[in-house]
């Protein structure tokens, strides 16, 4: 479906705030801070503003010092959530994250900090997908939730994790798409456990297509299930490798395929790391990656769509993998995993149009 880069989707954001508010009620040491933070929660989460205004710290446009300031808070036992806003602003505070927070966590007693940033696609500085940069830095944990349940659980977990977590809110994941896929309604979160799923990848039966964040939805929208990484570091590939391994034993190593679909650039991206690990662990598995070009987000709205993988690219890649294995027409067995429970929801999207379906 067409994605409006300026639309403010709420569900993932609300889920993160829900986890934050619940944690703040129980733990007085949690603070939320960043540029214009009071104003942001005023509009985004009035409940948090009403209940915890004194625990929101509005700081100047001093991105790097703001994260360093947060590290100072942790030295006194506090737990800061630093809202950096657009992911491009992470570049401004890269030093404080990579040099100060991450090193503090590795050379001394690790302390809890959550750094939150957002992706959208509205121009060159509106949410460049740079998560792989952070996944490469020792001392950081990096997560990209693809749905409200995961967003809630990952924020709750980050607030307990003794160390630094960089969490991304993908504003391009549309609320109406989330409605289609049977995610739990907001009111249920208050009572459910905040403990995240163990490991990153327990829900998907077949780890043949791997993706995370927004590309999860691009695939789902077209009826393809993919293994959701959730955490880019630590990168838990055990389930996927086991799945592939079983199939390697069952069929033949030469017949196995792995397609990685990522919302960020493929060059030095998470997919490159996955491909390398799989190639080392299971030689013979055919691997393809699809993602964004190595390109700054364009100013032209006509070009925005080219920053995300398309379903046509996915289909072409699967055909290529099949052809390389000499097993044309067997995608359904090897590469294609249909969403069974979600099929009903796929009948219509929020605009009342039938979404495109993947070919069998």
């Amino acid at each position, binding site marked *: 479906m067409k994605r409006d880069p300026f639309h403010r989707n709420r569900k993932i954001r609300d889920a993160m705030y829900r986890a934050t508010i619940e944690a703040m009620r129980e733990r007085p040491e949690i603070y939320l801070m960043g540029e214009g933070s009071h104003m942001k929660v005023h509009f985004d989460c009035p409940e948090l503003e009403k209940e915890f205004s004194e625990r929101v710290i509005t700081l100047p446009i001093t991105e790097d*010092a703001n994260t360093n300031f947060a590290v100072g808070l942790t030295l006194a036992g506090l737990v800061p959530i630093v809202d950096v806003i657009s992911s491009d602003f992470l570049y401004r505070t890269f030093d404080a994250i990579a040099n100060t927070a991450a090193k503090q966590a590795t050379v001394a007693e690790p302390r809890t900090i959550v750094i939150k940033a957002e992706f959208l696609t509205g121009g060159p500085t509106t949410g460049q997908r740079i998560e792989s940069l952070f996944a490469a830095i020792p001392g950081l944990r990096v997560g990209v939730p693809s749905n409200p349940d995961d967003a809630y659980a990952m924020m709750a977990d980050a607030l307990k994790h003794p160390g630094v977590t960089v969490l991304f809110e993908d504003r391009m994941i549309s609320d109406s798409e989330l409605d289609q896929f049977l995610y739990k309604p907001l009111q249920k979160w208050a009572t459910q456990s905040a403990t995240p799923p163990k490991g990153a990848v327990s829900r998907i039966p077949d780890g043949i297509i791997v993706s995370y964040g927004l590309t999860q939805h691009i695939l789902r929208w077209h009826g393809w299930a993919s293994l959701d990484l959730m955490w880019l570091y630590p990168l838990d590939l055990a389930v996927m490798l086991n799945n592939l391994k079983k199939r390697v034993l069952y069929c033949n190593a030469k017949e196995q395929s792995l397609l990685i679909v990522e919302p960020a650039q493929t060059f030095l991206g998470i997919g490159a790391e996955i491909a390398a690990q799989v190639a080392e662990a299971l030689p013979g598995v055919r691997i393809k990656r699809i993602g964004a070009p190595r390109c700054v987000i364009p100013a032209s709205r006509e070009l925005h769509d080219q920053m995300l993988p398309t379903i046509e690219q996915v289909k072409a890649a699967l055909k290529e993998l099949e052809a390389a294995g000499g097993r044309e027409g067997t995608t359904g067995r090897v590469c294609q995993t249909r969403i069974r429970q979600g099929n009903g929801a796929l009948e219509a999207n929020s605009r009342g149009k039938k979404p495109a379906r993947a070919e069998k």
Partner: protein
Amino acid sequence: MTSLAAIAEAEVSPVAQYANHAELYRRMLTVRMLEERLLELCKDGLVGDLHFNRGQEAIAVGVCAALQPTDHIVTHHRTIAHQIARAAPLEPLIAELLGKKTGCNGGRAGEMHISNREIRHDFAFQLVGTCIPVAVGLAWALKYHHKTDEIVTVFFGDATSSNGQFHEGSTIAALKKVPLLMICENNHLAGNITPEYYLPTKTVRERMAAYGIESMGIDGNNVLHVMSWAEMAADRVRRTGRPYLLEMDTERLCLHKIGQGDVRSKEHLTELAERDPLKLSEEQLGPSFPKQKLVDTIGAALDLYIGRVLAEGPPEMNNA
């Protein structure tokens, strides 16, 4: 042979007990003698990138003498003097400097990131300027969350005042009104570069007017002088809950670090050595002060500790 009891005596005493000149001198001498030994280890390739305090010892020692044991310090990367000034146990300190697993941070932090919560040295950072906003955050938490009267003292150099983190941190410190004592160790050097290349003002304190942060300049090589003014400044920060800057004029009498040259001529360095804070203290303490006994005791302790530390191994290396 010095007895173990005498060696134990060489450990600097707890913070609150040393506000007398002999104890101040002993701490400065311990810094000097440890750094001289570490320099030899550097030359032998047994230890990596260390930064020494020769000539600047009076600032760390004098300021820390003026603080309460419950106060916090945050420092730049030249940390040996501040650790000893806060009475850090020497053997774990040396082990940390050498990256050994018995170090106070398990040998992972080294000199430039060392911390020790026992002595409330909460943070040190190699990159200049980082220490300031971190100290501001710590001071904010103490004042507004914990609501204590503890203060934070942050040490930095004059060259730091041209870094963005200095200005961003000072902005937040002023806006948020945090109890922060800013100690500028003005040694007129940025690594190996002289002020005409990095400081557009004559002093650092001139810059503070823009933030509404009060400041004062003093001689940083007279340890008694440093302690007195630091007591005044710490008291002021504690009473007002606001930041204050003391700019201390000093000279670094050693290289920035091993392997670098020195732009200063030998004649100039000889001139600067006249301001050596240890020399000044020795003159003030008089000829009857038993310096040699102190040198022997401290030297024996350091040699014992270094010998033991060298036999230790490094920490394990894991993915983080």
